[in-house]
């Protein structure tokens, strides 16, 4: 089990980009982390992996896995521990594989880091089978540029699975892919999650993908989580006005409305986040209390939580 407690990611000598984010991921469940670009969701995932770029650092909070603190461990230190591990799949399958190494070398390398004593080659083939890559023997000998985007992303997943992770972090893994390939990769992730009893943190800006895939959803805005809920209650009755606005932006197949709703204004930049509720300048429900001071947590009957003074759908409040 992965427990993330109130982590803060800051620019060195600069503003906070992630401002106190907490969540947990149980084995076999998919948590969808949703937010616009720049909301801090990618930086949250890199912080979990210990892969923050040099200009950023994890300035507060803790990350524990199976009760052990991994907050400040580098990736190579984590993989060598005995307890649960994390692995990550990145957004850009085109650039995330080393262009001059064959696929086999890149997977076997990851296998050997995890268990140095085994013969890496059969295990690598097994991993490629797990991610349903056809003609494994041929693909093992290929270079990344000889593979399609979808295939490369499968290879990335195979590499991630090499350390038998307890939690897989997937940062917009399908954004760069064609729609049909997207569906295949999403299906694969769901399937692996069930089969391996693996937790998944799925990061996306696309609520539609979350609705299909996730068990639980965390909505992120301007570096904070604004709503946490199981997927069904969330889509039935969102509490936070930002979640509501995001849903209104989804294309609705049942209406003929050609005009898609948009949220007015734009998300604040780190360092320029307004006091009070960060969404208040763009929120149609904002009133005086929203503009300053701490924001209370509203709770719904199905265990939903939302950081809001004046939540939507009052009927489902606990």
């Amino acid at each position, binding site marked *: 089990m992965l427990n993330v407690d109130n982590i803060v990611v800051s620019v060195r000598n600069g503003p906070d980009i992630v401002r106190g984010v907490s969540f947990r991921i149980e084995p076999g469940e998919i948590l969808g982390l949703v937010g616009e670009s720049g909301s801090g969701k990618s930086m949250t995932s890199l912080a979990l992996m210990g892969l923050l770029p040099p200009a950023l650092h994890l300035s507060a909070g803790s990350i524990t896995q199976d009760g052990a603190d991994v907050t400040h461990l580098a990736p190579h230190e984590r993989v060598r521990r005995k307890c649960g591990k994390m692995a990550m799949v990145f957004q850009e399958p085109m650039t995330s594989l080393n262009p001059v190494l064959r696929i086999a070398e890149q997977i076997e*390398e990851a296998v050997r880091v995890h268990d140095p004593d085994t013969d890496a080659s059969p295990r690598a083939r097994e991993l490629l089978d797990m991610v349903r890559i056809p003609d494994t023997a041929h693909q093992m000998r290929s270079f990344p*540029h000889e593979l399609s985007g979808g295939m490369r992303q499968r290879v990335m997943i195979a590499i991630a699975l090499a350390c038998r992770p307890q939690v897989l972090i997937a940062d917009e893994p399908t954004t760069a892919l064609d729609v049909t390939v997207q569906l295949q990769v999403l299906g694969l992730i769901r399937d692996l999650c069930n089969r391996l009893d693996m937790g998944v943190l799925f990061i996306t800006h696309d609520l539609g993908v979350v609705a299909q895939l996730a068990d639980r959803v965390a909505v992120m805005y301007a570096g904070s989580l604004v709503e946490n809920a199981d997927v069904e209650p969330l889509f039935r009755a969102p509490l936070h006005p930002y979640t509501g606005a995001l849903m209104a932006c989804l294309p609705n197949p049942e209406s003929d409305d050609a005009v898609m709703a948009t949220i007015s204004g734009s998300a604040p930049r780190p360092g320029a986040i307004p006091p009070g509720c960060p969404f208040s300048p763009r929120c149609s429900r904002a009133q005086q209390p929203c503009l300053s001071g701490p924001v209370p947590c509203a709770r719904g009957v199905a265990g939903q939580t939302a950081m809001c003074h004046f939540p939507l759908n009052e009927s489902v409040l606990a």
Partner: protein
Amino acid sequence: MGRYFLRRTGAAIITLIAASIIIFGFIHLIPGDPIYVMLGDGATPEQVALLRNRMGLDEPLVVQYMIWAGNALQGDLGQSIFFDTPVTQVIKEGAETSILLATITMVWIILFGVPVGILSAIRQGTWIDQGLSGLAMLLASVPTFWVGLYLILIFAAGLGWFPSSGFPSIFEEGGLSNLRYLILPSLALAAPNAALILRLTRASMLDVAREDYVRTARAKGIRPYRVVLRHILRNALLAVVSAFGFTFAALISEAVVTETVFALPGIGRTVVQSILRRDYPVIQGVILVTVCLYLVINLLVDLSYRLLDPRVELE
């Protein structure tokens, strides 16, 4: 690959033809009659007529060029006026020194530039990096002949560890131990070029370190030094190795100054002396040969680069 090879070779040949026209034309750009310039004002009409005829200067320019280029293709670069021997002979005599000097210099450049560049990149932003980058910039700002003179002053005249000038062939008495004559010159010549390779290595390492696939490698849990060796260095060196080629070609001409300082019997010193002696066929010949060398090395580097980088097969 085959088509790329043809296209690249074709471009090199066109460049060579253009360069050869410039080299050929250069003798006609010199103000005054080149024959008188070469022979001096005291030349007799017979001498002038003989040289004019031998150099084919009576023909129209186009014909002259065709004859000159045709001869060059067959390995005949004309006759040295000063030595009265074929230019190819003059070049051959300097070639051993020049090639050995460039090769030893290249060894220093690689031994110093690459590892120090890697160190600088790994320690990016620390005082080590700043110090090494400053050193590189300083080395790039130093005239090679000045370094050479100081090396002579300290290690030849002062300590007497190395000879200060000249270079007997390694095929003569002394054999390979004659290479000690080239130690100081090669160090002087290496200084600014090693600085360039150092900076290139550092920049290339830092560029690759920002690549997504390096993040992937770190995410796998590979130890940092292995990430550097296997993922960053390997890709970064692709760019650095291609610079070795240019550097080697450039050394042949940069050695002009170094060979003069150390009185080495190389091609570079021959050029300088030929300029002072107005021995134009030799100057033309040397420039043509070095341009050829530059183009061939460039071509080879380009092609080997393509071979080393698996991405290119698709093109």
